[in-house]
């Protein structure tokens, strides 16, 4: 009897594990730096699938389209080739990259969108000459308006943070997200966050439809050696539309949308910086320098004749 109960418990655990694994299965774009020669790095992009972060390269997709969008809003199309994403980005700067997959299965049209942000340090000089001359200061990869070519999209808003680095996200930052369908904000759609360490959370929107979550601190990371520990998380969103139709001669009764965005984050700078120490140093320097000058002048006053010039 005892053995039977143990076996049942084990089977239940295995079943639960399988359920969690199935629930966590996702698809996302991964960026990898490849050292081409003497520290000259090239960025390679792959589509990955699995239980985040464990994954395998996706070799084939159903009717994929690949779009990338430059900061100024231009949208370009390119190819998807056996897992490796071939991108020839014309300008230097940040892009939002989208791979869209469509297929009908069990009378459901699946539209899956894999999104990531790519920074391109190279470019085609003929294409980007004017942009290089112009330069660019204003612009952020946060808070871009959704665009027509992407039906279902999650847009990261500017993170709320307490530290000094503006470009990226760090543990402890609060990341607000808005989810859009056909360029209109969805106010009732939750998102699922999964970190590299396995922390998972379903985030529900507030009354304005804003989805906010605080990036968790990885308490298991050994930051004694590397204080700028880097991790990843995956943001996923799901949406269903009750709409029937025919896609590639296959009828469907509803449409299921899926969206994934991988996000890198580091240990919070608050773990290795000190603002109060900074202020103490500034105030100490001001005090020491001022007092030094005061005493120097007092000492000098007795022997030096004052010569005043008109200053203006």
């Amino acid at each position, binding site marked *: 009897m005892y053995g039977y109960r143990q076996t049942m418990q084990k089977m239940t655990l295995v079943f639960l594990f399988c359920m969690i694994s199935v629930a966590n299965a996702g698809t996302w774009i991964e960026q990898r730096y490849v050292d081409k*020669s*003497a*520290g*000259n790095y090239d960025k390679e992009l792959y589509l990955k699938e699995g239980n985040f972060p464990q994954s395998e390269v996706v070799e084939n997709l159903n009717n994929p389209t690949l779009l990338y969008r430059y900061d100024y809003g231009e949208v370009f199309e390119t190819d998807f080739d056996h897992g490796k994403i071939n991108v020839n980005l014309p300008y*230097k700067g940040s892009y939002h990259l989208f791979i869209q997959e469509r297929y009908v299965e069990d009378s459901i049209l699946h539209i899956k969108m894999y999104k990531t942000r790519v920074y391109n*340090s*190279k*470019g*085609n*000089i003929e294409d980007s*000459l004017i942009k*290089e*001359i*112009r*330069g*660019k*200061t*204003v612009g*952020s990869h946060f808070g871009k308006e959704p665009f027509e070519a992407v039906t279902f999209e999650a847009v990261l808003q500017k993170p709320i943070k*307490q*530290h*000094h680095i*503006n470009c990226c996200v760090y543990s402890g930052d609060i990341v607000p997200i808005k989810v859009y369908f056909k360029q209109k904000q969805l106010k009732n759609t939750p998102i699922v966050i999964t970190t590299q360490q396995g922390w998972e959370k379903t985030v529900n929107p507030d009354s304005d439809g804003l989805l906010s979550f605080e990036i968790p601190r990885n308490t298991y990371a050994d930051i004694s050696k590397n*204080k*700028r520990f880097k991790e990843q998380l995956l943001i996923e969103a799901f949406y269903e539309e009750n709409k029937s139709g025919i896609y590639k001669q296959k009828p469907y009764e509803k449409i299921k949308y899926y969206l994934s965005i991988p996000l890198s984050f580091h240990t919070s*700078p608050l773990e*290795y*910086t*000190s*603002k109060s*120490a*900074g*202020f103490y*140093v*500034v*105030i*100490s*320097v*001001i005090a020491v*320098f*001022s007092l030094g*000058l005061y005493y120097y*002048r007092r000492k000098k006053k007795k022997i030096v004749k*004052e010569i005043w*010039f*008109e*200053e*203006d």
Partner: protein
Amino acid sequence: MKKIDNMNLNKVRFTIQVITFLLIVYGGYIGLDLGDKLPTFACVFNPEGTGGKCYLGMIQHDLDHPWQAFLGFAGIAFLISLFIFVLWVWVLNKAWCGYVCPLGTMQDWLTSLRKKLKVKFIEYDWANRESIKKVKWILLILLLLLPFMVSNSLLGLPKLPGGLTMPFCDICPGRMLIPAFVGDFNQFYIDFSNPTDLIMTSLGMIVVGLFIVGSFFKKRFFCYFCPMAAFQYIFSKQSLFKLYKDGSKCTKCGDCYNACDMDILEIADDIKNKNLVTEDCTLCLKCVAACPEEGCLEANFAGKTIFKSTKEGFILRMAMNQQIQKESNND
């Protein structure tokens, strides 16, 4: 023209400085974007507010690449950036320092505060002037060399740590003080993550302290050490904006020297050279306003005189100054 020659330069300059300060520090909020090659401290660490970006930050960032990268796109992009920077200098020359630079403006405000408080100013020791002049060149060489050495092994030396990718930004007082004007004090910090960052951020805090006290007691305290001034000066000779002197009209009275915030001796002593924009000059044109000789000093833009010294202007400005002094004494 006469009206310009007789103007109260201090007032005009103060107004221009306030306007440019607002544009550079808060311009981003109204969508102003002057690009990222500006020859002035438009700070990249003030990302929301800045109306443009400082080229020193940009060039440090650009140089942090393996040398092979410069044979391709990065090399062309680097030359384009440098060319745009030179164009900006070509237009305004060192007037970027005297009229636009937010750090320069902050220093001028601190000087005004000192004058109001009637605290006596200090001068650098003349024995050390030549050494002080060299500091800006040393800083310029270091800010160009160190980021390059982060990505490249130079002369067989090991690569430098990543904390030196933007060495001048680490110690530039603009990084801390410009964002402070938009209410962001997050740049006041010391980084304990590794020895390089610890040293650089601590140096940054020390420089801010020195900047505040130094600028209070010494006019344009930081400009003597500023690598941006050195970088601009390399391209200054070809600029459209010049400060000319007619040596035959100079009586060496020293009024121009007394007016100069940067204590440039040549402005009073040099009667041979026509172009008097020196490496320390900020083209504030205070010397022109202070000169009592007709047409001895002039600001020239693209071959046209835009402001020159006149006897009438000198007398009017003297009268204005006396009036201001009287009023402040009565207060």
